[in-house]
C-alpha cells in the first residue's frame, strides 16, 4: 500500500496503559476509522501449577529491528494508518500485561487482519524467551509450540 504508516516500537520493563496508547495513536493519525488492540497477559497457572513470576529475556537490538520489520510487513499487506507494538521484558507477575499490539486503519478489516498477523509473526520470529518460576519446584524455560508456527504459516 502506498500510504505512510506510523510505526511505534517499544521494548521495556515498564507497564503500559491501553487507553493512553490508543489516544496517542489517534492524535497522530488522520481518518482513522478503526483501532484493533491485542493485549497478552501472564497466566496465573502454568501447566496447572500456580506461577510465582515469569522472566522475559530478549536480544537487545535484534528485538527492536525484528518488531520493526514485522510492522513494516503488515503495512505492506494491509492499508494501515499506524502500528504500535509494546513488549515488556524482565520479571512479570501473574496477570501482568506482557504485550500490546494496536493497529489503526480506515476500515476494520485491515486492522483485524493486521493485528493477528503481527501477533502470529511476533510469537515465532521476535527474539524473546520466557522462563517460568512456579511457586513450588524448579524454574523452566517455556518450549516453543508448533501451533504457533502453524498460525504464522496461514499467512503465506
Amino acid at each position, binding site marked *: 500500500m502506498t500510504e505512510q504508516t506510523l510505526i511505534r516500537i517499544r521494548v521495556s520493563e515498564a507497564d503500559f496503559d491501553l487507553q493512553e496508547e490508543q489516544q496517542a495513536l489517534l492524535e497522530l493519525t488522520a481518518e482513522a476509522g478503526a483501532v484493533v488492540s491485542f493485549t*497478552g497477559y501472564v497466566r496465573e497457572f502454568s501447566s496447572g501449577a500456580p506461577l510465582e513470576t515469569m522472566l*522475559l*529475556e*530478549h*536480544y537487545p*537490538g*535484534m528485538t527492536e*529491528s525484528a518488531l520493526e520489520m514485522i510492522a513494516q510487513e503488515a503495512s505492506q499487506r494491509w492499508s494501515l494508518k499506524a502500528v504500535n507494538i509494546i*513488549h515488556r521484558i524482565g520479571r512479570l507477575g501473574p496477570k501482568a500485561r*506482557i*504485550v500490546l499490539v494496536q493497529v489503526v486503519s480506515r476500515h476494520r478489516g485491515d486492522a483485524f487482519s493486521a493485528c493477528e498477523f503481527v*501477533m502470529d509473526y*511476533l*510469537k*515465532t*520470529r*521476535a*527474539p*524473546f*524467551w*520466557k*522462563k517460568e518460576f512456579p511457586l513450588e519446584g524448579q524454574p523452566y*524455560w*517455556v*518450549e*516453543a509450540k508448533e501451533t504457533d508456527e502453524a498460525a504464522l504459516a496461514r499467512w503465506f
Partner: protein
Amino acid sequence: MRTLNLLYFARLRESFGREKETVVLPAQYATVGDLVTYLASRGGEWENELGSDKVFRVAVNQVLATADTPLPDQGEIAIFPPVTGG
C-alpha cells in the same frame, strides 16, 4: 581467518555457562553450518544442544540465518532456542 562475536540466549546461555565469547576460525569455516559443527565438536553440552536433533536458531548480525548463511568477518552471531515471546 575470521573473528566472530558469539552470543547465547535463554536456555542455551545457561547450558553453555556463558552469554558471549569471541572465536577466531580458520577460513574453511565459511558458513553458519560450519560454525555449528565447530561448536558441537567441543563435546558435552555443546554437542548435546547443537549436535543432536534439538532445535535452535541462529542470527547473523541480528537477522535470522540458515545453515548456508556465510559468516562475515567480525560478525555478531547469536545462537538461541526457538522464541517464546508474546
